[in-house]
């Protein structure tokens, strides 16, 4: 990412660089949005729906989104399933192995908040956002493949506002609505819910 980062910063300072930057951003955001390759981090039940999503019936290849087993080739990590304390270091490590720019989709209640395993358990991490920056949350236990499809399209919308210049973000096309489940802070404020 170093090269692109430097390029962004340099263009930003050049007179007239803003125009180049904007067109470059447009090309990059378009290509990134249309080719979101998934790192299937399926640990539990949601993994079945994650598999179903890229198979005959739902076929995510239509959106240019294919699952790749190797983190080095992926853009978006789909955390599908419960993350336990034993598993968390591996998930973090896989996330670190992915090249920038990268995004995370928390699929299912377990990855969002711990879900049904929120109470009484000693080994479950309550939400993957405790150690990963999550971009899109999908509620459901497990969510339908269509929800994952929706999440990919939402993520595409979110990617379309990125800029390579540090600290800049292009104007939001539309304010992203919350994707079904309240964010971590809101949930805690609301007093917690059980899956």
């Amino acid at each position: 990412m170093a090269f692109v980062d430097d390029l962004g910063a340099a263009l930003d300072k050049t007179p007239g660089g803003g125009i180049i930057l904007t067109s470059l951003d447009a090309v990059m955001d378009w290509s990134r949005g249309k080719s979101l390759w998934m790192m299937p981090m399926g640990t539990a039940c949601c993994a079945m729906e994650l598999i179903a999503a890229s198979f005959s019936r739902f076929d995510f290849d239509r959106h240019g989104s294919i699952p790749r087993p190797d983190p080095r080739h992926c853009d978006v990590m789909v955390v599908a399933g419960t993350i336990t304390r034993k598993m968390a270091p591996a998930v973090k490590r896989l996330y670190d192995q992915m090249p920038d720019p990268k995004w995370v989709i928390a699929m299912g209640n377990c990855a969002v908040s711990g879900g049904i395993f929120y109470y009484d358990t000693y080994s479950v991490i309550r939400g993957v956002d405790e150690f990963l920056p999550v971009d899109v949350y999908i509620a459901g236990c497990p969510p339908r493949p269509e929800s994952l499809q929706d999440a990919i399209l939402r993520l595409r919308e979110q990617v379309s506002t990125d800029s390579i210049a540090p600290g800049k973000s292009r104007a939001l096309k539309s304010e992203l609505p919350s994707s079904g489940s309240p964010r971590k802070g809101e949930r805690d404020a609301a007093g917690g819910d059980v899956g």
Partner: protein
Amino acid sequence: MTEETIVNIGPSHPSTHGVCRIVVTLDGEVVVKAEPIIGHLHRGIEKMAENRTYLQVVPLTDRLDYVGSMYANWAYCRAVERLAGIRVPERAEYIRVIVCELQRIASHMMGIGSTGADTGAFTAFMYAFAQRDHVVELFEALCGSRLTYNYVRPGGVSMDLPDGWVEQVRSFVAQHPAAMMELDTLLFGNVIARARLKGVGVLPADTAVAWGTSGPTARGSGVNWDLRRDDPYSVYPRFDFEVPLGENGDCYDRARIRLWECVESCKIIDQALDQLEPGPVKAEGLPRLLAPRPGDAYDHIESARGSLGVYLVSDGSPRPYRMKVRSPAFCNLSVLPLLAEGHTLSDLVVIIGSLDPVFGEVDR
């Protein structure tokens, strides 16, 4: 003999079917030692059950074996029914048999498909999964969920069959054996697949028994043991079906038996639909809050992976004092080090796939 290499497979690896780490010691490409390290999905369901009422535990059992949720539901409900002395209406028993046999098809499609994927025949996986999608849609019509059904409840099932469901099941069962024949030709008829699966990971029958394996893993070795026939429960004695057995106990037999079991399941579903009579689907006079008398009970059923048992201890309160799930996948996976020894890394992957572990159930 070359210098030994240690290769770490997992915990997130395309072939481990979930989250299992296998530390493999390799001599060149040959596995000297394979040690599975499990527990990456250990969520403490047994501990959680101690702080929930008997009814609230049912959704937890869904998440045990997420490829075949109905089985854990049923095994748990049988244990509760035994503990609380509940008599289940006959229609509910038939519905349970029908949904569990459909679940067996769904689960085996995953098992056979992943055998295909492990050997590199990804298309076979797709074909198997298409069949699974049909079953999942039937279940969705039945109880509104694609994976975690929460359908079998203590005393019966949560609701009666929806209109037209029986016909949908009949049409599914009618086309399924033909689809299985197609899959058989596609995967097991292929000369490369035969070469990859035959003679790999041979599990002798006496080892299979001693290590506590069950289900297709044991039957692939020729162990003639199926709880549906040998320790009959529910209405299974009324059905006429065969238990397919393997001869060599290799990956080929283990994987192919699943295919024949699907065909047998279709037979059972057909008979069950014929015998299905109208009636209540839930036991009469069931209290809202079950509080069985103190004691312990164990019951087991034949799940897609083997004998799935639930052991419940009650202290008279509305919550289980202790719940233990005897998970077939856990026992089946424990033979992996024996099977993998002496085979290559490529075979190791196939052997894991042929044991068909589901880590929700292995780790609980």
